[in-house]
């Protein structure tokens, strides 16, 4: 298995169960390839950060603009 395929399978196994042959191939490749192990760690970190951001966006993210806030408040009063 080449690193390119390993990277694809590292991603795909988050989305669906891999066939047995691919699971074994990926496991063997990861045992032998430190760079792919690092890549997998980083992909998992990206997904964990994204999941956290999805549930609780940063308090540094922009807030509802004042004019929009007023427009919504007005529309709720009608």
């Amino acid at each position, binding site marked *: 298995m080449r690193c390119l395929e390993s990277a694809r399978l590292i991603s795909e196994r988050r989305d669906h169960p891999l066939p047995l042959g691919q699971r074994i191939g990926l496991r063997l490749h990861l045992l032998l390839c430190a*760079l792919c192990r690092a890549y997998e760690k980083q992909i998992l970190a990206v997904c964990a950060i994204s999941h956290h951001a999805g549930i609780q966006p940063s308090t540094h993210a922009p807030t509802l603009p004042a004019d929009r806030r007023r427009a919504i408040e007005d*529309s709720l009063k009608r």
Partner: protein
Amino acid sequence: MTDDINHRDTSRWVEDHGDILYRYALLRVNDPDLAGDLVQDTFLSALKGLEGFRGGSTVRTWLIGILKHKIIDHYRRDRSEVLASDLPPGTEGEDLDHADRVSARWSETPSQLVENREFWAVFTRCLSTLPEAHRRAFSMRELDGLTGEEICKVLGVTATNLWVMLHRARAKLRRCLELNWFEGK
């Protein structure tokens, strides 16, 4: 409990929940005007459906649920123009950008990173560089935890196409964060 008692006091809705809803929408649609429209629609729908709110969840959870449906409806409505240019033709000729070392910064916790102002700016900028269909697929899968089957229905793509889009989105986001944050600091 207080939230439950006060849910009919709609005069405080925008003050109490407006920013949270806006941030939620903006992260998913990457367009301030559209995010504002979706938040406005959410409040108006909630007002209309107020009698149906049983108080089984907090007002905020209820409002976020309405907003989530509005965002998915938006994705579904204009999917054809977005997808035409972003559907993956195949994986041939792709390059893999391996890191040759892994910065210790990758071990920081998600909550530490998300609450770091500079990281948040980099993260949202990196998300915005993804092709629109890939960003939507990634958002539904990783931000919201939808299943592949649910996402395929919204985007109108096959499972194989979805997996390729998600792989490319994850790989591109990883590379962007590595260059602009983890190794670039």
